[in-house]
């Protein structure tokens, strides 16, 4: 299902890129298309996080979803987490972060997302790839039945996106397309 969505996004890009093949700059129209694809990936990540965190998700299913979630990220991506009480950033590999989320000691976990996101401009890196940041907000609620403890927080997630021009072969023709990968994520607890 997801692969089909991404494929359609890539096709959309092909249509957009065909008129711009000589130029490496990203036009507003192409930027908008890249934003849409990047947002799709962020939404998928949000959905995967909700599934991994949910206590109703079986262990094997959570592991399968973690695999899918990991595929969204560029190799070596890390989550940098800080809280209201400490500005220190704790670093976790993406997989480790998901495993910690799955292992949280609550009987009921509810993860929801705010209906707001902010997408930065794309800046070009020395290696020619473009980089941007998408900001989203997550609300977490965990309940422990035994202790009656109810924990809530809202976190801001600043998610790196890497945008790269790639090539593919379609019917013997080499065609350029733009692909998006997620990178490091900064997780900050907010006062909201």
């Amino acid at each position, binding site marked *: 299902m997801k692969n089909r969505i991404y494929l359609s996004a890539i096709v959309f890009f092909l249509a957009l890129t065909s008129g711009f093949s000589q130029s490496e700059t990203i036009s507003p129209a192409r930027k908008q298309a890249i934003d849409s694809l990047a947002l799709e990936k962020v939404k998928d990540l949000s959905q995967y996080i909700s599934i991994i965190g949910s206590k109703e998700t079986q262990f094997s299913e959570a592991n399968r979803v973690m695999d899918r979630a990991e595929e969204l990220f560029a190799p070596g991506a890390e989550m940098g987490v800080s809280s209201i009480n400490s500005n220190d950033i704790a670093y976790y590999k993406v997989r480790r972060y998901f495993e910690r989320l799955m292992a949280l000691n609550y009987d009921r976990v509810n993860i929801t997302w705010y209906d707001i996101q*902010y997408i*930065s*401009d794309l800046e070009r*890196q020395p290696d020619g790839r473009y980089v941007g940041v998408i900001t989203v907000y997550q609300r977490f609620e965990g309940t422990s039945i035994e202790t009656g403890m109810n924990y809530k927080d809202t976190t801001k997630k600043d998610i790196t996106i890497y945008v790269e021009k790639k090539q593919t072969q379609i019917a013997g023709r080499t065609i350029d397309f733009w692909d998006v990968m997620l990178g490091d994520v900064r997780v900050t607890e907010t*006062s909201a």
Partner: protein
Amino acid sequence: MRLSLALFAVFFISIGFVSAQTYRGSGTVIDDGRFAASTKQLNQFFRRFNAEESPDGSKRYYPGDSLYHNIPLRQGFIQILFDNQTSSVNPSLKKEFIDHVLSGVYPQYINFHRDGWFAEVETEFIFNGRREQATLFLKIQPEGLGYEWVIEEVSFPTFQRLFNKPQGENKDFLHPLSHELGFMNLRRAFQDSGAPESYTEKAFSPDYLTLFLYEMNKGNLRFETVKGVKFHFFQIDGWYFEVNQFNRPGFNTGWLIANLVKLNPGDQETILDFIYDQN
């Protein structure tokens, strides 16, 4: 123009009156306007300062768009780009700054790729087994096909304590006929003196960044974590401002101007010396 100001006002007034987060049927939490109002990224600080996006941040304005660099929109944005809760920026100074930036004759903008702004990053390192604070100063520079952040300076109190060059009568010296003795008195200078920097030229200034990198390469200095970030801007002629991140309840949050100084001749160097804290 009047329409854009009205739109801006309606947007920010309306988000100010809604007080609670609500849930939509799908499980999505509807923002009560606080996150929309927050300057969520430094990128948004640039866009708002220059009026290069819509009031809610959902639409990017480009040259040729009717509201791109629109003066009333900028005025509304810049007003909310100040920390209005804890910083004591004088209102008349703020007004003078806004008037200066929005000048009809020579409006001024901030630019991501231009010199005149840099980041100050508070970090923690383990140095010889002990936890130590270090402040890194980073700037944007062109490199290869794009840009990169690079370290320009470091302030590391542990090193600074090591370099305390005595002045005047307290300063040891190599007497002016030392050469006749084949500089044999260097032994006393280096072995007996507790401050070998006494024997350096007037213009000597320790290069802390080189020392810092040396210690890191030798394995004596290990990065631990980042504790805070702020930004310094000198891009507006005759003005300096500092941008900090405010993570607190309410609508005046995110990346905001925490400090504003009108510069007289020579002030920029004084402020830079203070920020870099190299002495």
